[in-house]
């Protein structure tokens, strides 16, 4: 299966049906709406302007493009609607390598030539991000072609298969027309997505966050460094920002909103669902460097008389994040904290065991107004993984988990 480099194809002479030269290849275009990899159109620079040559009528590539359609049939180019131009949109630009989980710059593209039912088909095979593409670009036209090819064969290629390449397009309309989504990127771990977006320019970050699904965007945003987090939320429109904030862990979302200019925070809050908004406003009122500022308001609590069966039932219905349920709390009818049961104990006990008999002694809790430092000391002293936070009336108001403490400690490192 012969391969061509995109930069070799660009500038190749084109011959008409009579065999005389009528132009050069200016661009190679895909129409992603039809096929994500197949070359659909060659844009030919002719003496009468740029014209579109559908790739289906190309009969041979080697030694110049030959075609079966007469030049008069080639449509004049008007814009590039719906076309992904490999030269302009990809060459030298940054793309996301989903497999290697990083942002890379494109040196060249490898195009694979196939023959399907006696028809010539050209597909984008991979993106060249290594020295081979670089050397080709540097020496093309300077060194004789034969010598250059011999040299290039000596250089091990560093390429990314086309299927693992995510494009970045900042124009929303074009993103839709070119079917650019971030399905593959979305499958990565939120922390990896965060690392990737941190390496992008602000407009590009915004583009990624507009395209990702809300819950993925929220997970990734939590992992992004605070300065970039702020910039992203400020650049998105408030409706989109609110959607993402709603999906974030409440404590992380509150920290982030507290850092934004007040005006912006209220714009985002206004777009949120009433219940989530109320919760967020409550969290925002707490001082940031107290226990309450660090705590999460999503936790699982059951009544003091509940059994293990009830607790497991409640666990199944719980919609919050999994890290907050490693401990399940017992509260009385006033909401006062009465006990804490580690998940492991529940798993080992029979369904009818009363929860009250499984509680951990002593019951460690902290007051909402406690300093962060005191909280960290409690975690260290009692080797905690979660810590309940209570208000003045001993009512359970939130939970701090060990990952919150790790972020806190790292921030002060």
């Amino acid at each position: 299966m012969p391969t061509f480099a995109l930069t070799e194809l660009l500038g190749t002479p084109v011959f008409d049906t009579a065999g005389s030269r009528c132009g050069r290849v200016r661009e190679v275009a895909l129409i992603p709406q039809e096929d994500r990899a197949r070359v659909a159109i060659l844009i030919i620079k002719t003496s009468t302007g740029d014209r579109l040559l559908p790739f289906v009528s190309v009969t041979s590539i080697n030694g110049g493009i030959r075609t079966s359609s007469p030049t008069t049939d080639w449509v004049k180019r008007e814009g590039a609607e719906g076309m992904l131009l490999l030269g302009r949109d990809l060459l030298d630009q940054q793309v996301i390598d989903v497999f290697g989980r990083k942002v890379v710059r494109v040196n060249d593209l490898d195009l694979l030539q196939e023959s399907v039912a006696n028809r010539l088909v050209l597909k984008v095979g991979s993106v060249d991000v290594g020295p081979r593409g670089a050397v080709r670009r540097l020496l093309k036209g300077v060194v004789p072609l034969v010598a250059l090819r011999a040299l290039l064969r000596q250089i091990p290629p560093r390429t990314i298969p086309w299927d693992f390449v995510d494009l970045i397009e900042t124009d929303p309309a074009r993103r839709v027309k070119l079917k650019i989504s971030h399905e593959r990127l979305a499958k990565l771990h939120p922390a990896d997505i965060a690392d990737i977006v941190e390496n992008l320019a602000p407009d590009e970050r915004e583009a990624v966050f507009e395209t990702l699904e809300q819950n993925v965007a929220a997970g990734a945003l939590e992992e992004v460094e605070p300065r970039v987090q702020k910039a992203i939320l400020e650049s998105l429109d408030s409706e989109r920002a609110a959607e993402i904030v709603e999906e974030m862990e409440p404590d992380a979302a509150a920290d982030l909103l507290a850092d934004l200019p007040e005006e912006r925070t209220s714009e985002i809050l206004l777009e949120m669902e009433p219940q989530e908004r109320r919760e967020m406003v409550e969290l925002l009122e707490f001082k940031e460097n107290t226990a309450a500022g660090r705590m999460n308001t999503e936790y699982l609590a059951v009544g003091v008389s509940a059994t293990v069966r009830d607790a497991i039932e409640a666990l199944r219905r719980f919609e919050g994040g999994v890290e907050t349920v490693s401990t399940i709390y017992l509260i009385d009818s006033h909401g006062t904290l009465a006990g804490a049961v580690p998940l492991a104990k529940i798993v080992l006990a029979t369904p009818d065991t009363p929860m009250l008999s499984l509680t951990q002694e002593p019951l460690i809790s902290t007051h909402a107004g406690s300093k962060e430092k005191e909280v960290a000391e409690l975690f260290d002293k009692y080797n905690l993984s979660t810590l309940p936070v209570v208000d003045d009336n001993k009512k359970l108001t939130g939970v701090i988990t060990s990952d919150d403490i790790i972020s806190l400690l790292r921030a002060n490192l």
Partner: protein
Amino acid sequence: MSFLKRWKIRLLIFFAVVGPGFITANVDNDAGGIWTYSAAGAQFGHMLLWTMIPITVALIVVQEIAARMGAVTGKGLSDLIREEFGFRITFLMMIGLVIVNFGNVVTEFAGIAGSLELFGLNKYYTVPICAVIVWLIVVKGQYKTVEKVFLAASFFYLTYIVAGVLAKPAWLEALEATIVPPHKEMFLRQDYLYMVIGVVGTTIAPWMQFYLQASIVEKGVTKRQYNASRLDVVTGCIFTDIVAWFIIVACASTLYVHGYHNISDAKDAAQALHPLAGDYAYILFAMGLFNASLFAASILPLSTAYAVCEGLGFESGVGKRFGEAPVFYWLYTILIVVGAGVILLPNIPLVKISILSQVVNGVVLPFVLVFMLLLVNKKELMGEYVSSPLYNIIAWATTVVMVGLTLAWFWTLRGGSG
């Protein structure tokens, strides 16, 4: 106690306001700058003062363009050159940048060697030790902390202003020379043209544009906050050139009038501060030069490595491990090791080499300017933030003048006069 506290608050406010523009401007008065301005004053008295106003205008315009491109696109200069002009041009540009910046790194180590020699410290110890310090500061990720120390210490430049005043210069003459260029005969002199190119090259150095744009991006300045950055850039540029003016005046009224026309080492240059510090002038000078050199030496190789790796698509960043970003770290290391190594050659003329590197800056400047101008006027890149016609005229004029000066200098070489 309250006195200390008040100072602490003032310092904090100062650092909050100080942005990339001011930092860049400060680094601009590096070893190359100090040597070149000193030599200009010593050799030609007031005859280079007229360049200061046009240079300041050009510097503001050029730096502002770099800052604006950083804020609007969120990308570095080398990224933009790569994305808009392709691989080959970027590659050649980066080769050029590495060569010019290598010259600048050598100059910074020359500054380190020269300043510490004033304390009687041998360059064979000081230069390698400082090279290791510089390397470690960055690789161990301590740069941001150290930057504040450098910045605070760069207030040393104010001593030149004081020294300039105390030297009782011929104020009227100096002011006149600032506005009126010398007789056109001067422009036929090879050494004069050489110095003009050097003064422009050291003030509007190519690497500064890469560094400033990268810092703006790194700081996360966006279009919305751009106006504050513009102020920061303009203040920085004016400050740097006022200092430059006073260095020239101080050297003119001490060295030039007493017939010391050729500065050959740090001892000579330190005499410019004699009116201020008397016999201790050398201490002031040495500390200032040392700080400026070390400051720039920790920025230059790093900024070069970033620019090159980003433009050519190599992994970069001090947050990465050596194995993850080998090209980045090797380039950074080689620039420091070889740059310091050159200074260790016996009998190397420190000042001559330094000024030569600044002249090379001036010769390369127009190439960088052409790319910046083409980029900043691209509507699809800058949108409504493209340059105004006046800006373009000033920037293109700077480019043309620099090419003209370079050609004129080569022309004088041809005749073998000088």
